[in-house]
């Protein structure tokens, strides 16, 4: 009984309250899955957004986020596989259009799906570390469509083929291209990996082939024009339907294939290469070459090297051409023309590139100094311009010419040689009164001063001062003498400061007695006003105007040098004089005398003397007669001295020697200056420092420097170090 009454207790597990129907999740998902199908089938109009959103929300809220997310992946993948099939089936040119259309549809569907799944995107996705719905849609598109085996290569081939056809001149549907590339860009690195890389490779081989073909059949200018066109085409293509980041890459491919690989060949192309362009002043072609070559490494240096080599070669020919050397003015004019030509090219075609200007300068410096007569010629050129060349030319134009000359001057290494010649030429101009304009002369001096400093021009300026004071002195002289001077010869004296002028001491000749008188008066006057000075007559530099009456009473005024005047005055008292007699009477140095006689007797139209025997040259035993039959249609006859403007060989040697002599103290002074501050120095350092100090005037020869050092050691300015023979010490 008790056993029967025993009740069995059964302990059951505590049942949680069932919150929702267990099939709820499955049912809800079915609704959402159906909605996704409808969206992809363009049948979304019957769907209620509120209901779908609420369903997705509830799934996440009830911890079915995982199911929702994986369901979405599966469903979307299924649809994309179908889409892939329909794209694969598209025929020919419809392929891209179908792809574009489906991409548009997928995007639209994706947006709607994302709307439904918004709550999941906001809560479940970040906390579970999943990919957000939009990115998920793109990734699935990429994996199922773009990377599908039947689409991937076909898509790439189609795109590359279209671009190839466009390069060949066909018109393609750029809008479609833009949509497709835009899609690839939206998919992230897909554009770079699946399209850009092969695109660049194909482009490289295309342009490698085309450039090969072009270079065989085009000249350089044409080739460059085509390359430029291709570059702008590629840039335009990028702007129309490629990612802007591709521009740099594709242009660098074109640059590499069309320019960098053919640079040498283009530059050296026969009959049309760089040298021809330079020679023919092809500004446009040169500018094109510059702008294309600057895009590639070593491009500009290639142009520069060829230009420099060409310039040096033509320059070298120019300065060593014996024909050109005959006329110094022409020679310098050629240099200036050459400089103008290249200045023009650099400014018009090379964008005023500093490195090109430097190359031009260094080339000029190189070849101008190849010829050691350049300083003389440049001075002669200035002399020519200042004598006559600048008549009727405005001040500004003169300045331009002078500035150009200064440019050449800057290239000179031996500026002191130029100074020497310039001084000589200036002296001649001043003494003979041949300068056209004082202002221009002075402006030239100012230019030299700014270029080389005060020292360089102090003596030149001294010459101008002398000229001015001489005029005053002479006025004073005549004012004091006017009573005593009758109709004797008029004397014009220029008092030159010794040292400022390039005078060589020459023994004074015997002046005719008429002149001596007035000369003595001037000497007395001058020494009377200036005590403690010494006057020496430089008869070799003077000029005279004399009146001569020839047979038939013909009267002429002869403009001659002082020497020639002395000779002619002798014929006032004699009909015939031998060379020896003239030499004795006048004591003119032999070389000058010969030259004077030559100009008096041998120049046609100006032969106021007659020589026996008739010949071009003067010999010691010649005899001279007064030429009674002399005629001329001019009243005034200018009898020049037969003197080459250009220096003769021995004179040149002499100038050279004087320059060398002048350099010695300068070098010594430099050495002493350096040693004074440095106390102890080795030989090489001294040479370098001396060279750098004197560079603005000339380039000292190391051998000469060594000699000067030795001389200074002898004179005990320096001594050799006892321990190290290479070291010098300053003694003071």
């Amino acid at each position: 009984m008790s056993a029967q009454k025993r009740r069995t207790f059964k302990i059951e597990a505590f049942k949680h309250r069932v919150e929702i129907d267990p099939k709820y999740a499955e049912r809800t998902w079915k609704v959402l899955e159906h909605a996704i199908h409808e969206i992809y089938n363009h049948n979304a109009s019957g769907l209620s957004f509120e209901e779908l959103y609420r369903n997705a929300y509830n799934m996440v809220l009830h911890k079915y986020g995982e199911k929702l997310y994986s369901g979405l992946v599966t469903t979307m993948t299924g649809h994309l596989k179908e889409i892939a099939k329909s794209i694969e089936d598209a025929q020919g040119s419809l392929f891209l259009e179908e792809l574009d259309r489906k991409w548009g549809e997928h995007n639209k569907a994706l947006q709607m799906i994302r709307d439904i799944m918004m709550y999941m995107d906001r809560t479940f996705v970040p906390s579970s570390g999943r990919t957000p719905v939009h990115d998920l849609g793109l990734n699935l598109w990429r994996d199922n469509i773009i990377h599908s085996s039947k689409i991937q290569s076909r898509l790439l081939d189609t795109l590359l083929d279209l671009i190839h056809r466009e390069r060949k001149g066909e018109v393609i549907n750029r809008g479609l291209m833009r949509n497709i590339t835009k899609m690839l860009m939206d998919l992230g690195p897909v554009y770079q990996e699946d399209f850009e890389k092969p695109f660049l490779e194909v482009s490289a081989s295309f342009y490698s082939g085309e450039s090969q073909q072009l270079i065989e059949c085009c000249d350089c200018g044409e080739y460059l024009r085509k390359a430029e066109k291709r570059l702008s085409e590629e840039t335009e293509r990028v702007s129309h339907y490629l990612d802007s980041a591709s521009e740099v890459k594709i242009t660098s491919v074109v640059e590499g294939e069309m320019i960098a690989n053919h640079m040498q060949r283009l530059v050296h192309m026969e009959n049309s290469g760089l040298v021809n362009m330079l020679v023919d002043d092809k500004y446009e072609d040169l500018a094109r070459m510059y702008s294309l070559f600057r895009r590639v490494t070593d491009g500009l240096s290639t142009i520069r090297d060829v230009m420099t080599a060409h310039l040096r070669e033509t320059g070298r020919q120019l300065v060593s051409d014996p024909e050109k050397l005959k006329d110094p003015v022409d020679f310098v004019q050629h240099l200036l023309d050459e400089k103008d030509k290249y200045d023009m090219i650099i400014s018009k075609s090379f964008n005023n590139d500093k490195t090109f200007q430097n190359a031009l300068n260094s080339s000029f410096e190189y070849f101008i100094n190849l010829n050691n007569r350049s300083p003389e010629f440049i001075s002669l050129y200035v002399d020519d311009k200042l004598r006559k060349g600048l008549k009727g030319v405005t001040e500004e134009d003169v300045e331009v010419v002078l500035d150009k000359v200064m440019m050449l001057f800057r290239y000179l290494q031996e500026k002191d040689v130029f100074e020497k010649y310039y001084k000589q030429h200036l002296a001649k101009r001043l003494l003979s009164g041949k300068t056209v304009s004082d202002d221009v002369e002075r402006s030239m001096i100012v230019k030299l001063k700014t270029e080389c400093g005060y020292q360089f021009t102090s003596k030149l300026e001294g010459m101008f001062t002398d000229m001015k004071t001489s005029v005053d002195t002479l006025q004073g002289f005549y004012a004091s003498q006017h009573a005593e001077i009758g109709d004797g010869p008029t004397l014009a004296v220029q008092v030159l400061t010794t040292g400022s002028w390039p005078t060589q001491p020459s023994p004074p000749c015997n002046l005719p007695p008429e002149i001596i008188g007035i000369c003595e008066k001037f000497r007395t006057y001058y020494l009377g006003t200036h005590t403690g000075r010494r006057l020496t007559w430089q008869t070799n530099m003077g000029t005279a105007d004399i009146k001569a009456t020839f047979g038939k009473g013909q009267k002429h005024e002869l403009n001659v040098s002082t020497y020639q005047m002395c000779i002619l005055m002798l014929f006032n008292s004699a009909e015939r004089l031998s060379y020896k007699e003239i030499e004795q009477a006048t004591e003119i140095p032999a070389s000058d005398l010969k030259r004077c006689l030559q100009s008096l007797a041998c120049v046609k139209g100006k032969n106021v003397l007659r020589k026996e025997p008739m010949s071009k040259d003067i010999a010691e035993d010649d005899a001279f007669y007064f030429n009674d039959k002399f005629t001329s249609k001019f009243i005034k006859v200018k009898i020049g001295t037969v003197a080459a403007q250009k220096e003769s060989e021995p004179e040149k040697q002499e100038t050279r020697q004087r320059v060398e002599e002048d350099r010695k103290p300068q070098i010594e002074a430099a050495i002493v200056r350096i040693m004074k501050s440095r106390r102890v120095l080795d030989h090489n350092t001294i040479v370098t420092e001396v060279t750098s100090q004197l560079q603005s005037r000339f380039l000292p020869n190391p051998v000469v420097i060594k000699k000067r050092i030795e001389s200074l050691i002898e004179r005990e300015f320096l001594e050799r170090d006892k321990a190290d023979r290479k070291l010098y010490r300053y003694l003071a």
Partner: protein
Amino acid sequence: MAGRKCRVRFNVGGKIFETTATTLANAGRNSMLGALLDESWNVRQPEEAEYFIDRNPACFAVLLDLLRTGELHIPPNMPEKLLFREALFYGLLDKVRAARWGAFDGNRLHLASSVSGRAPGDGTAIRAGPEGGCCVAHGSMVHVYDWMLEAHPPISLDFQQVNDVGYIDAGSIVITARERLGKGDGGMGVFSASTGELRHRFRVTHYDQVKSFTAGALSFSNADRKIFTSCKGRCNEYGIAVWDQDTGEQVDFFYEQLDCSLGDADKLQWLDADKCLMVATLFPRRDTSFIGLLDFRAKGVVWSWSDANASVSASLDEKRVLHATAVEETRSICVVNQYDDLGFIDLRSHAGGVRWSSRSKLMNRKAPNEESCYPKLATHDGQLFCSMNDGISVFCGPEWVLTSTLRRSFGGSICDFSIGGDRLFALHSEENVFDVWETPSSPII
């Protein structure tokens, strides 16, 4: 016709609302309402459309008002949490947060909330997140709170002492920890703010060798995407390590030089204008205080100050610099001593000492039996904040005049505070309570 189309009618949980499309546009396309009205969902729209939404109508009213005016007014009988839940449904939670409190102003703060923590005793540090959340470090735990002040799963570091914490962004927290002898742990890692999971562990390499280290003070340069940490290695590899915020890789290491202690700095502060890092190693961690500016481009200390020479006697009565903050606006560094004096060091001169300012002497209300904390300094938008005992003082203007004091009655001294996300968080030492101070939204007129 056009006017009618602009009107939108809702039936929310049985209650009818009418509003305009313009008002709803304020919700943005990336919200539930934005999607609901989008044309892709309204292809066959009937003339008199009424949208039914199966939600709480009271909350919808509040949110609709927010969309209309940009202001948030929660009726007293409505729990905040309920409203936040509804806002999340509509995708409007960010808008609610933005309208919840105003732009930070130290002189208009009011106590919004006090949150009691779970751990008793001293907190190490409190840090404000960029979006109004905060995290509190206690021993080897870091408690994380979002802007709704809801606690997230705490971050536990397996008994390693946390030295400093900081936010990279609202979702990522960096924690530096002390290395335990023989364990080879310590170091520094990034944790998820919402789940507390470890996302990345930072490594230090010296001469291509990975070394374990103790990480100390943290600073961030958001413009340069860098993280700076003071590091102590086992073999005197002391210095400042620099990491990339995005890759998590070490990009630089500035080794400690003679006369400047960097490896155990109290405070690092990145100065955006100078592109320099301020490093302050202070008493009582070291006997002598050092403050320097590091320039990582020049690889050198471009400015420094130290009291090494000044404190010859090392007596406790002397003014010791206890905390420092750089004030970029005035090109100076503000410091505080144990007597609550504020001092300033000019960044433009290299020889200057501390100019103690008597005018801005802090109010000393110290109760005799209360445990005191070291003072802390911070700056925000030209305002200077200093914690002392149980209050925080706010100083403004060129003369740094005391303009406000933030104080609450319980919780004991303030051991740390932090400003960020337009909020000020103050952590009290005794009760493990932190206070949240906000600026109310602008007045109506």
